[in-house]
């Protein structure tokens, strides 16, 4: 019985890994080789020539940078904006607080996909199409992030805040020297979720961009693929260049990423 478990487990692992390994191996194969059986994919001759070709002749490396750059900017700003809002909703008494809370909560019910057509018109009216600002700005207000961070701020005891006030510290001191440090794991998890979301954001760039200098990976890759013929080497090089950085990041930060993803179960 134990061996059955082991074999089944390994089989699953193999199936999950196979497409990625295939991608990596085909990407270093020489172009134009004849493929008869599946084993031919994995045999020499190998060559990195296509990598040079793709990196110099296409904008792929720009798109990798765009995806990372936009992801980082969106992540930092989203978390800051959500932390500010979540802090207020959690710890500052003010008029209309419960109204504000429900106003934000209602945002969880608005699927981005359902308002994408009017968003296009709004962005067009504001001259935001085909710009980094146009890609980044609409992504920055995340009701989900606000609600989750608020619930973590709720867990910070009020005694701590009062002790800062007794020392003469204001609201900003409370925010920066108590709230943020005490909720660092939650902030990190939220950052990771936001980055993954931005990394995979497809629909909005797809609608709002026509300038290929601004493309992100999900936008750019399909435009390259349509120009390649039967051979798989070029497409796989494209896939590999687009994936290696993020896969390495995943392996380095795996523990934090797993924690961040566990947090997303709170949603709903």
């Amino acid at each position, binding site marked *: 019985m134990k061996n059955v478990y082991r074999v089944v487990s390994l089989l699953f692992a193999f199936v999950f890994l196979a497409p990625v390994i295939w991608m990596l191996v085909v990407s270093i194969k020489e172009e134009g080789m004849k493929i008869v059986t599946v084993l031919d994919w994995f045999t020499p001759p190998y060559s990195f020539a296509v990598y040079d070709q793709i990196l110099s002749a296409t904008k792929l490396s720009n798109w990798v940078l765009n995806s990372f750059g936009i992801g980082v900017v969106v992540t930092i700003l989203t978390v800051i904006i959500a932390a500010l809002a979540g802090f207020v909703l959690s710890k500052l008494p003010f008029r209309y607080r419960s109204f504000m809370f429900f106003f934000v909560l209602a945002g969880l019910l608005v699927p981005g996909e359902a*308002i994408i057509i009017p968003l296009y*018109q709004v962005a067009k009216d504001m001259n935001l199409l085909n710009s980094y600002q146009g890609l980044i700005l609409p992504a920055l207000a995340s009701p989900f992030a606000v609600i989750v961070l608020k619930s973590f701020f709720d867990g910070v005891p009020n005694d701590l805040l009062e002790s800062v006030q007794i020392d003469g510290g204001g609201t900003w001191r409370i925010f920066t020297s108590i709230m943020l440090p005490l909720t660092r794991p939650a902030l990190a998890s939220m950052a990771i979720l936001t980055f993954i979301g931005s990394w995979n954001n497809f629909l909005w760039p797809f609608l709002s961009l026509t300038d290929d200098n601004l493309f992100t990976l999900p936008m750019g890759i399909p435009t390259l693929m349509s120009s390649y013929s039967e051979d798989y080497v070029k497409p796989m090089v494209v896939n590999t260049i687009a994936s290696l950085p993020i896969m390495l990041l995943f392996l380095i930060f795996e523990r934090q990423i797993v924690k961040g993803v566990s947090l997303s179960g709170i949603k*709903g």
Partner: protein
Amino acid sequence: MRMNKLRADVQALLYLLPFLVIYILFTIWPMIKGVNMTFYKWTLIRKMKYVGWDNYSRMIHDNEMWSAIWHSVIFVVLTTPTMVILAIALAMIANRKSRLQRLYRSVFFLPSVLSVAVASFLGLFVFQPYTGLVNSVLHLVRLLPENSEIFWLNETNLSWIAIALITLWWTVGFNFILYLSAMQDIPDEIYEAARLDGANDRQIFFRITFPYLNPITKTITMLQIIASFKVFMQIYIITGGGPLDKTRPIIQLIYQTGFKKNDLGYAATMSYMLFAILLVLSIFQYWLNNRKGANA
């Protein structure tokens, strides 16, 4: 906190301001503006003319829209139960003590970090006839005779299977992690007690593990239904909605109506149909989670 009341209000508003400005500008305002668009013939260039409820009555009788919604439903039905089962199975594999435990966790989550375009194109190549990985492996193990090929993406049912498998492979990692962390929260003593009472593996799974996972299963199921309903990009890349629009989901139809047929007004109208469906699902999910006794 003792403070002048007005000052407190102003200060709170200042902290909220960045969120509110962006939220109102890019979520609330488009939502309102979109309603307005549904009453117009509206092209990519400009507002054309007021058409009253025409877009709505057209939508009710639009077979293309209903079949696109149907395709999204098919995708939901194909991916939701399989997603839950696969996620539990993978979590059980990665939860067993073994030398490869950490490796399993990495491997099952790895596809989830790939960009949607990469995942879709890999899937597309994997399911190609003649040179694709699936057919080649089937040839190799002689499940598929040497001279025959499966044309996965030329036939509707096979296309659905291919799309569903690719989606499972690419996205199961998230749900797998949710299950894994839920399983690790189950106290060991319960398992030990069950074993002392002579329970076998099957009984332990169905009497202990699965009931313990019930709240997270409910959450995952609902989130998956909503997420699957919003499918677009994988299908767009893998089959383009084909063959003959037989796999075209609702979001693709909205996109094509707005941007290929230059009819933003009608596309917005269909968006609100999608909105209504998702809203009902979300409210149902909220109700499910907040019922008396539910603790998700």
